[in-house]
C-alpha cells in the first residue's frame, strides 16, 4: 500500500483527510492522470500521428509543477524533497536557502529581486539563473577580504574598494562563475531565481522542515 503524502500529488490543501484506502485510489487516479496528460498519449487520442515537435518544460516562480515521493516502504524525509521555485517563492529577496546539502557543500535557492549586498567568496561559486534575468557585477578587491580557506560567501559592508572586472547579464539557463577571492553584487528588475553552487557559509539558511516533504 502506498503511503504517499500530500506533497506533489496535486491534492487540494483544503481536502478532508483520507483513509489509507482512499490514498491508494487517489494515487492510482494520479497515475492515470499523469499518463493521459503525457504529450504522446494526448497525441494518440488525436489520431496517433507521431509528434513532430516537443515542448521542453522548465519551471518558474509563476508556474511550476511539483513532483513528490510516493512511499512504498520508506520515510519520505530520507529524500529531502523540495522544489526550488516553491522555496524561492516563499523567501525574502536574496535569502540563501539550502535546497541540497552534501556534507559541507550546498546548493542554495536564491530569490533575486532588487539589488543585493556586495558579497565576497573565498572559493569559486557558480550562479545558475533558473528563472528571470539577473545582472551580476564583479569586482577585484584592493585587499583580500576573506580567508581563502573559509567556506561560503560573506557580506561586504558598504562598497568594497577595488577594480571593476566586468558585468554579466544572465537569463534563464545561464551559468556565471563567481571567482574565488572576488566580490559580486546581483540585481534583478523582476523577481528571478538563482541556484547557487557553493559551500555552507554563515548566511546559508537551513530550514528543511519547512521546505521538504515530510509525509
Amino acid at each position, binding site marked *: 500500500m502506498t503511503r504517499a503524502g500530500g506533497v506533489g500529488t496535486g491534492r487540494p490543501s483544503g481536502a478532508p483527510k483520507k483513509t489509507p484506502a482512499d490514498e491508494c485510489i487517489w494515487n492510482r487516479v494520479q497515475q492515470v492522470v499523469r499518463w493521459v496528460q503525457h504529450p504522446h498519449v494526448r497525441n494518440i487520442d488525436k489520431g496517433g500521428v507521431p509528434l513532430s515537435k516537443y515542448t521542453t518544460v522548465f519551471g518558474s516562480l509563476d508556474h511550476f509543477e511539483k513532483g513528490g515521493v510516493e512511499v512504498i516502504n520508506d520515510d519520505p524525509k530520507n529524500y529531502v524533497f523540495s522544489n526550488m521555485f516553491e522555496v524561492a517563492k516563499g523567501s525574502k529577496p536574496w535569502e540563501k536557502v539550502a535546497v541540497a546539502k552534501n556534507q559541507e557543500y550546498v546548493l542554495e535557492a536564491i530569490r533575486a529581486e532588487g539589488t543585493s549586498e556586495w558579497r565576497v567568496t573565498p572559493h569559486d561559486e557558480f550562479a545558475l539563473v533558473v528563472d528571470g534575468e539577473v545582472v551580476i557585477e564583479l569586482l577585484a578587491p584592493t585587499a583580500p577580504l576573506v580567508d581563502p580557506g573559509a567556506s561560503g560567501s560573506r557580506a561586504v559592508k558598504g562598497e568594497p574598494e577595488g577594480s571593476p572586472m566586468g*558585468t*554579466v547579464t544572465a537569463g534563464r539557463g545561464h551559468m556565471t562563475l563567481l571567482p574565488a577571492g572576488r566580490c559580486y553584487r546581483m540585481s534583478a528588475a523582476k523577481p528571478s531565481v538563482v541556484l547557487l553552487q557553493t559551500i555552507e557559509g554563515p548566511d546559508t539558511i537551513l530550514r528543511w522542515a519547512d521546505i521538504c516533504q515530510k509525509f
Partner: protein
Amino acid sequence: MSNESLVSSGEANEHGYRPFTLGGFHFDRDEHFVHITWPTGRHEAAIEPFLKALMRDVAWNFFYGTVNFDAVIGTLNHYGNVDLFAGRFNQAYREAELDHTENFPHDEIKATFEAMLGDWVNESFDPFAAPQETGSAYGLKSGANTAAVTRTRIAANRMVGLPDDEPLRSDESGYPVNRMFADVDQTEPHVEVVPGFESEVSAFNFFAYLSRSDVTWNPSVVSVCRDSLFCPTTEEFILPIIHGNDRVEWFVQLSDEIVWEVEDRDTGKPRAKVIMKAGDCAAMPADIRHQGFSPKRSMLLVWENNSSELPGQIARGEAPVVPVRF
C-alpha cells in the same frame, strides 16, 4: 583502446564475436544475448541493454558504489579494485548460496570491459544514444563503432567555456541541438569584461549546452566548487543500469520529468518512487539503488561530492546515509 595484455579472450565464434574471461567469469555473445557463466551459475541477458550498461560502467570508471547491469550481474567499486558479482545483491541468489563475487585490479577489469565493447558493439549501434537515435545492437558481427565506445567523458577543471577548459558545444564542433530540445533558447549571456579579467569573467548558456548533448544517461562535469561537482546530463528512456549508492548523491530536475524507482540497495525490495519535475530537488540516500525513467529527453543535474575522504568514510561506515535529518 584497451590494454590487451590484461585481456583474456579467444577466437571469434560462429556469430563473429570473441569470448572473454575474467577470473571465473566467462562472457559470450551471440546475435541476441550475452551468456555469462561463473562457478555456481549462469545468466542470460539481451545484448542491447547489457552493452548499454557495460558502456556506462566503463565510461564512469565503475562510478560511485554499485553498478547493477540487471538483477543479477554488476560491479562494486572499491576505488582501485573492483568486484564483479553475480547475485550478490539479489536476496534469492544469496539465500540459495548461488551468488559469486570476484575482485579484480581496476586496470584488468576495465581493459576487459573495454575490449568487450570494442568487439561486441557493431558499427550501427551507439550504446550512449537514445533508442530512436541509433541502430540495433542485435545480429551478426558487423564492423565496430570505436568512436562511440571510446568517447571521453567531459570533465571541466573549473567551468565549461573558460579559457583552457572544456569548450562549449556548437553545430560547428559536431553538437547539433537535440530533436527534443529544438525549443531551448540558444542565446548566450551578455558578458562585458574589463581587459585583464578574461579568465575570470565568464558565463555560458548551461541549458543550451545541455540541449546539444549527444549522449543520454552520461553525466559530465560542468563546474567545480572544490569537491562539489555539477554533473548535468540529458536523459531519455531508461537509465541502463541500476545504480546502488555508496554515498549520498543529489538530483535536481532542470526540465521535464523523470520517475525514479528506488529499491533497497542490498535486497532490491521496493522502497519508493520519486517523481521529479522541473525545479524539484531530491537526495538519493546511500543505502538505496535507483533507476530512472524519462519519457521525454530531460535535463537532470546530478550533483556529486567527489571528496577523496569519502571512500575511507564509506569503508569505515562513517559516511552519512542521508544528507540531513529534520
